[in-house]
């Protein structure tokens, strides 16, 4: 089936045949009856007090931060539309990536969705033209569900909420059809049947099930149905795997140590697949400048979890690779990362005052080293290499 086979389907108006309309009516009546008992003229809440509290933003922000911390990082911010932004004070506002697209801050590396084929992380193999990754991954365990969300934005206007696209992955969802009140139009992703949903006169959602995971792509008003379908079809599963047996987790070394001197070698597992590699720093200057090389088998966007800072992302060339280049809000370089031909993701992050030319020069000098070459390099650099257990 192709797009030419699209068909309009008017699905039933009921939410779920197992839901009892009488119960729904009863619950509705109860809520309205209880709401009618709510005291609405209280001296304790006055607009003057709101204004007084508004004048103490630091205190309020601190309280919200404490609150956010108390719930263990549970999402209290939303970013669905410009009209309904996150109800948080500025200090508790989410981090930003790729401009100012609000996202949820998270220090935890992303976990993956388990499928019958094993754990995967699902990503656009190639983003639809004009879109860019807009934020971190929301990864949240619910009582009966586990959800992930990725946010994409139109590259030309990353702050324009009307052009954002959310991609949701969820384990426990009831059905994959559109809401009962909306129109549905089917399409396919390879052999998988999917459907776009017409909501409020616009095609804003595409849902389907793949390997037991429900995928829900939700777009804002300025995203067309064609773009929505393109997003859906761009998704592919990236298997989560460890580096090949015998392959050192840190398999890249700089071709020259004239500028950079190895300080330490380490093998740190961050989350499931991410390995810290080598620290290099120049030996002069008051403020040591360093580079840290990370490699992992997974998704390149996981770089944002390692960096753990808001960053603006552009693209550069690193040794023939199409690479991402992340800077902070002041334009200072933070990291560059790319995918090697063997699928391994490589990121070089700066530590201290390192400018863009230095970062790119260092990154471009990296070359794959087999275990013997790495051992030789490490010996020359004066640190020991610990190989992973095959």
């Amino acid at each position, binding site marked *: 089936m192709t797009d030419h086979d699209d068909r309009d389907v008017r699905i039933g108006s009921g939410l779920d045949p197992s839901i009892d309309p*009488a119960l729904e009516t009863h619950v509705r009546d109860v*809520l309205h*009856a209880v709401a009618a008992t*709510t005291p609405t003229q209280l001296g304790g809440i006055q607009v003057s007090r709101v204004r007084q509290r508004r004048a103490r933003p630091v205190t309020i922000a601190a309280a919200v931060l404490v609150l956010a911390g108390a719930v263990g990082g549970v999402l*209290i911010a939303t970013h669905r539309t410009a*009209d309904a932004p996150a109800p948080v004070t500025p200090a508790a506002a989410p981090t930003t990536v790729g401009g100012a697209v609000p996202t949820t801050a998270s220090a935890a590396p992303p976990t993956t969705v388990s499928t019958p084929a094993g754990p995967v992380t699902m990503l656009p193999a190639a983003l639809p033209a004009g879109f860019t990754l807009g934020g971190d991954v929301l990864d949240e365990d619910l009582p*009966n569900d586990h959800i992930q969300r990725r946010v994409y934005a139109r590259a030309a206007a990353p702050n324009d909420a009307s052009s954002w696209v959310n991609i949701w992955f969820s384990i426990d969802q009831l059905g994959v059809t559109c*809401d009962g009140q909306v129109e549905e139009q089917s399409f396919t992703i390879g052999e998988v049947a999917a459907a776009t949903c017409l909501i*409020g006169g616009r095609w804003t959602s595409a849902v389907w099930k793949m390997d037991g995971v429900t995928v829900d792509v939700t777009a804002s008003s300025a995203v067309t149905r064609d773009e929505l379908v393109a997003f859906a079809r761009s998704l592919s599963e990236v298997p989560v795997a460890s580096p090949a047996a015998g392959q050192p987790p840190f398999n890249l070394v700089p071709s020259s140590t004239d500028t950079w001197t190895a300080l330490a070698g380490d093998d740190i597992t961050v989350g499931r697949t991410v390995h810290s590699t080598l620290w290099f720093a120049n030996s002069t200057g008051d403020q040591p400048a360093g580079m840290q090389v990370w490699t992992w088998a997974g998704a390149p966007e996981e770089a944002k979890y390692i960096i753990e800072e808001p960053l603006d992302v552009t693209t550069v060339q690193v040794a023939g690779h199409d690479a991402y280049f992340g800077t902070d809000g002041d334009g200072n370089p933070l990291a560059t990362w790319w995918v090697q031909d063997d699928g391994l993701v490589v990121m070089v992050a700066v530590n201290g005052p390192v400018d863009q030319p230095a970062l790119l020069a260092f990154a471009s000098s990296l070359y794959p080293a087999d275990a013997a070459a790495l051992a030789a390099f490490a010996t020359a650099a004066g640190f020991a290499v610990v190989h992973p257990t095959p």
Partner: protein
Amino acid sequence: MIDDPLPVRVARIGFDDFYSTRLARALRLAHLVTGSVAVGQEVAQDAFVAVHTRWATIENPDAYLRTAVVNLSRSVQRRQIRERRHASTIVEPVATLPAYDETWQRVVRLPVDQRAVIVLRYYEDMSLNEIAAELDRPLGTVKSTLHRALAHLKETLHDRP
């Protein structure tokens, strides 16, 4: 990311007018989602503070206020759950019909996310898509949550009409 269904205001009113005309609704919503008049009052006030903080830039204060009320209510409830992990839920009495009171007791004992979905669906009359946007959840998850909440209420209510 679904555009909020509430109509955009034709003319912008001042914050004081906004406050006075929306206070009752915010208090009721916060009461229903938190299950407590007192906690709801605190939540409502915090929500108005959030609105006031961004008053100059908010395009739709009604939607912003509702989002603030719901999310702050959920956050407060989660915090309280953590603080009284082993304590029994204390439900404030309300004076309605006995059958209504029983149902309300059951609603208050629902997990906060389920209660939020119930309130937004049946008190605010929002569609599931709108609720998904409000709670920042996938549509299917909202469906599952609503289904689970109703199934629980149905199981626990003895004299449902």
